[in-house]
């Protein structure tokens, strides 16, 4: 297992290098120029000399290979460079937003898991009854409802009912837990509901499959009570696909909540991503892509470990 893990972790390096190279090329293919966006898009008169001077300062007049070598050289020293738009280190730009995005992803995952697993199991065990139908309605509605739309409904509900809106400024959890939670609990509910819908359906179908297995029939035949059969024997084996879905959704939440972040005015990674792309902030886009790729890579490694822990039959060589 340890050897397998070490190999997987070593493979992370070439994977990330390939992502970095691909992103470096792709962002430069998109038309648009950060200097014009910065100096001209406001409609103000700026001379060509000023534009050229700024392009030179940002290193955009260097040959592409030189820009690539500079950037990869920085990566080798764990330096992601500075944002071309703000001039601040890319790591700092990301770190400010990552705290919020991570907390929101964890909260949404907690909401999703605490809804999805009990509901999915219950629906599978009571297959064909009103419970199953109710859970199906709940999960289909969740799949059909975009998180941002649910977010808007939540905000309107709060505004009309209590004449109150969640605070728009982020306060870290350890500074003021009440302020922090009163801001993040609403987007966590909006995002967690959709996320739980996916996981509920997956739990239900995985459970239905496992409940048909011979060893479950054997457990029933031995006269075991429902709880140990369902929880100890069925659920544990049904969890593998569910864990995969939860892991991949979690990775998605780190950078993928663009619209929800806008609705709740959250200063998260998704919004930063969109800003960086619309400004053609190459260094920041590259840094963010590396972050997202790293999250996916490490979540996948984590999932492999989880599989081994959940299913003793799985052994990695």
């Amino acid at each position, binding site marked *: 297992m340890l050897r397998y893990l070490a190999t997987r972790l070593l493979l992370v390096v070439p994977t990330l290098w390939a992502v970095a190279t691909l992103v470096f090329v792709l962002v430069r293919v*998109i*038309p*648009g*120029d950060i200097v*014009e*966006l*910065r*100096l*001209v*898009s*406001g*409609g*103000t*008169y*700026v*001379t*060509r000399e*000023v*534009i050229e*001077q*700024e392009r030179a*300062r940002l290193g955009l007049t260097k040959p592409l290979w030189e820009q690539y070598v500079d950037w990869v050289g920085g990566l080798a020293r764990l330096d992601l460079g500075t944002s071309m*738009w*703000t*001039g*601040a280190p890319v790591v*700092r*730009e990301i770190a*400010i*937003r990552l705290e919020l995005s991570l907390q929101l992803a964890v909260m949404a995952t907690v909401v999703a898991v605490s809804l999805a697993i009990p509901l999915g199991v219950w629906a599978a065990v009571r297959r064909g009854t009103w419970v199953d139908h109710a859970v199906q309605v709940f999960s289909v509605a969740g799949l059909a409802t975009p998180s941002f739309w649910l977010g*808007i409904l939540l*905000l309107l509900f709060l*505004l009309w009912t209590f*004449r*109150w*809106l969640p*605070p*728009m*400024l*982020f306060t870290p959890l350890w500074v003021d837990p009440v302020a922090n939670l009163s801001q993040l609990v609403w987007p966590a509910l909006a995002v967690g509901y959709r996320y739980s819908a996916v996981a509920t359906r997956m739990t239900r179908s995985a459970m239905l499959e496992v409940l048909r297995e011979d060893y479950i029939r054997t457990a029933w035949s031995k006269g075991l009570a429902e709880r140990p059969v369902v929880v100890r024997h069925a659920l544990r084996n049904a969890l593998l696909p569910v864990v995969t879905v939860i892991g991949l959704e979690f990775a998605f939440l780190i950078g993928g909540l663009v619209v929800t972040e*806008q*609705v*709740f*005015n959250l*200063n998260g990674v998704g*919004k*930063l991503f969109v800003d960086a792309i*619309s*400004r*053609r902030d190459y260094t920041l886009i590259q840094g963010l892509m590396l972050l997202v790729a790293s999250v996916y890579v490490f979540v996948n490694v984590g999932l492999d470990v989880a599989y081994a822990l959940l299913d003793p039959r799985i052994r990695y060589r």
Partner: protein
Amino acid sequence: MDGRHRLTVLASLLVLAALVAGSAATGLSAPTPPPRRGGVLNFIVSAEPPSFDAHRETTFAVIHPVRPHYNLLVKFDPLNYPQVVPDLAESWRVSEDGLTYTFRVRSGVRFHDGSLLTSRDVKASLDKIIFPPQGVVSARQAAYEMVESISAPDPRTVVIRLKWASPSFLQNLASPFNWIYKAEILERDPRWYERNVMGTGPFRFKEYVRGSHWEGVRFENYWKRGRPYLDGYRALFISSPAAQTAAIRSGQALVEFRGFSPAQRDEVVQALGDRVVVQESGWLCNLLVVPNARRRPFDDARARRALTLAVDRWGGSRALSQISFLGPVGGVMRPGGPYATPEAELQRLAGFGRDIQAARQEARRLLREAGVPEGFEFTLKNRNIPMPYQPGGIYLIDQWRQVGLNPRHVIQETGPYLADLRAGNYDVAVDFTCDFYDDPDVQLAKFLSADRSPANYAGYTDRLLDGLYRQQSRERNPQRRLQIVRQFERRVLSDRAYQYHLLWWRRIVPHWKRLQGYKVGPSHYLEDLEEMWLTE
């Protein structure tokens, strides 16, 4: 009636008129309570400052949150635009030939680090803007072409010598971007201010959390006695219009200084009723139509003229002002501004007349003459920013279809849109301008030949226009200057029809009544927190 009686009657009438006017004014405006000290003003800024150095930036996103930390040498009076009033300059003198401006710098002005301001700081700051050192970007360097030298002969005097007398120089100097920095810091590192804040302004820097907010607190040693009234301010960075409206409705922010759309205004007013005040004003911004003069058939002035003739601006103004902040009809200078073209004169320009049927007939004739076939297909390139570009673009498409043309609306993200405009990769484009004051030097620069103005995407070269620009820029007689501006306008908008305005914008700023001491002006770059205060 003899002369004495006539004078008495005239004087009595004047007094009566003054009394009536006075009582009417009193009746119209509620008594204003005396300004109150205290409170923190939360306001929305829809974008973030790229850097903290206004000398290199062109966006309001640096002005709104960061400007309260700084003073200018002279500034536009925030309550009485376009009057220029002293800021760090106590007074100034202009030589008779208009070539020398001598400023007397205030004494006892302190920077936020406690050091005293002298003329050396003013000179260093203006030098950085007008004669930037190698590697330092100054966005407005070209606006000060007329400056020959800046000197600081003693700690309280700054002398600016010009190469030619420029009638707009003082207003130009009052640019809200011309912040005064500390000379010692600039000498050490001319780019220090890109990432740091240290000025003489009414508020000290407290905190900036990227993507979230910017905070300032009152500077207790501020040179202007009794100011600022506010204890501090917090600029909240909120880009989504829905979230902006929600922030105002919930009272988390009291105002967004740039401007709301009519729909946002209505939502706020409906929700807050008499707790909100709506201020509206003309806006020094406009939407332009830019035919590509490097491409057929728009290399032919007749085809370009036909496009402008087909557009009913007066009808558009009525319709579009209901759904967007597009509104006033105007030429090259802002309608309602000091250089505005009178309506009678404006109506003589192609596309600005009130008889749209006659204009469209003329447009069809010109299109036939230019060899443009019925149903001619072309693209209208536009930005993906909904307000006000998209309603403007859709309106244009409809107008051109009415003269037998078949335009297609191509909406692009700002990056590719600018890249295409710069490369001349378009047929007709929607463009815009935004400025901080009404002056031909500023508003006409965009229309200079393409080799002189990087903002001219139409791609034409017209030395006559360049010459007219130069003439008006140096003309000290206001009447003669105005005549040259009108000549310039006729040539750009009508005779050659190189580029033309669709409509100018209208600023709509709803704010909580609690906010006092604020008056909306025609530029969103001129906001000044010094005089603002909050009721209980």
